[in-house]
């Protein structure tokens, strides 16, 4: 075991990830409890979602240890890598973003310098640029393309530091993309539903195409068994589908409640503002 330095690497890394995740969840739940004591409404499922998201990221960090020591996953090392990729880059970020952590932070930080500073950062031009849906999509999908279609993937397996940087980027880019599409926390710019849907469509297509090419061709400089490669590629393809649908459901729920609110507020019976004729709709029901 001692001539395998990589065995200590993932162990220590998993411990750090576990501690950071536990700290994050503790801070979140502490803030949510304070908010509720104050009398604000903050649904309990947001706490659960953030905890589950952090759990997904921890699971991805622990997964290599489990597959190496206890129970090899069906498929092989590439499939195991892909399961971790889905957890860190897609499932974890989605569950964390659904908990609206930035909104919670803004509501619980005392009014004053810190809060003003936070808002300045959130509403700054660089933040607006990074959270532009197309920019976030390019950072996320571009990063994946570089990872799987350059020697970076092989380098990651030789060097723990490269692996850490890559996984941090996968997580950060996944968070950014999820934030940019869902837009549940306060951001400076608003984008219409068609804009968000088109970016989600193109990003999903790029993800699907990358998964299909991985089915036939492993990343440069690596050799995986064909069955492992195929299982991993299909996991990426259908896992991407599942998270893509979840993101679309977030958009659909936002649209549904927005349309309902608008109709309720305006007292009109039509979903789309351009077809609304107030005089007709206010007429008593025939």
């Amino acid at each position: 075991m001692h001539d395998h330095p990589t065995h200590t690497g993932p162990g220590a890394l998993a411990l750090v990830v576990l501690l950071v995740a536990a700290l994050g969840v503790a801070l979140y739940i502490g803030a949510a409890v304070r908010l509720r004591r104050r009398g604000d409404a903050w649904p309990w499922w947001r706490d659960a979602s953030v905890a589950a998201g952090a759990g997904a990221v921890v699971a991805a960090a622990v997964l290599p240890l489990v597959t190496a020591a206890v129970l090899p996953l069906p498929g092989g090392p590439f499939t195991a890598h892909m399961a971790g990729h889905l957890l860190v880059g897609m499932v974890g970020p989605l569950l964390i973003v659904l908990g609206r952590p930035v909104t919670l932070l803004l509501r619980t930080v005392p009014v004053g310098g810190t809060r003003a500073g936070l808002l300045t950062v959130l509403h700054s031009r660089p933040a607006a640029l990074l959270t532009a849906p197309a920019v976030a999509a390019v950072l996320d999908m571009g990063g994946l393309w570089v990872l799987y279609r350059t020697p970076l993937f092989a380098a990651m397996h030789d060097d723990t530091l490269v692996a850490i940087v890559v996984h941090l980027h996968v997580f950060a880019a996944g968070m950014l993309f999820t934030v940019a599409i869902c837009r549940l926390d306060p951001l400076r710019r608003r984008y219409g539903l068609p804009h968000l849907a088109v970016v989600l469509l193109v990003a999903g297509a790029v993800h699907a195409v990358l998964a299909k090419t991985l089915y036939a061709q492993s990343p440069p400089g690596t050799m995986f068994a064909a069955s492992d490669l195929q299982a991993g590629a299909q996991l990426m393809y259908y896992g991407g589908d599942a998270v893509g649908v979840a993101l679309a459901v977030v958009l659909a729920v936002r649209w549904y409640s927005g349309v309902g609110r608008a109709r309720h507020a305006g007292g009109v019976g039509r979903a789309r503002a351009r077809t609304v004729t107030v005089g007709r709709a206010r007429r008593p029901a025939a």
Partner: protein
Amino acid sequence: MTGATRPGDTHGGISVRHSAISGALLGVALMAAIDEIVFHQILGWHHFYDRSTPAVGLASDGLLHTAELLVLVAGFALLADVRRRHALAVRHFWAALLMGAGGFQLFDGLVNHKVFRVHQIRYDVDVWPYDLAWIAGALVFLAAGAILWWSARRSVRTSGLSDG
């Protein structure tokens, strides 16, 4: 009209247009899902990727596949909204669903299988009877939808509902 008793739920009558759009979206998406589940996963006839696919076919397949998922969600969201307004034209909805399903299958059989050659229906057999059955199936769905739509329009005309 009855219903729409909740406050704020004003209703402008039956919306044939929105019922039909949600039906067509769901028809397309459900047929795509059936294709994926039955032919790719259960029967294993279609290949995930058969290496002879040109790059443009692969890209179009990726876009189409993702679009199907978004269309599924959009169709359900629109259906939920139409139902919330008590504006669902049930028969138009089903007619549009059948036509959407048939339209997708026709598109899949002609463009995906034959033009872009993403994959074939079945491998290591003479494929043309399968292609023929695929396209005939699409036409049956389209015809059934069209007949239902025609009868729905007649019943709308006789009961005096307006398009919305």
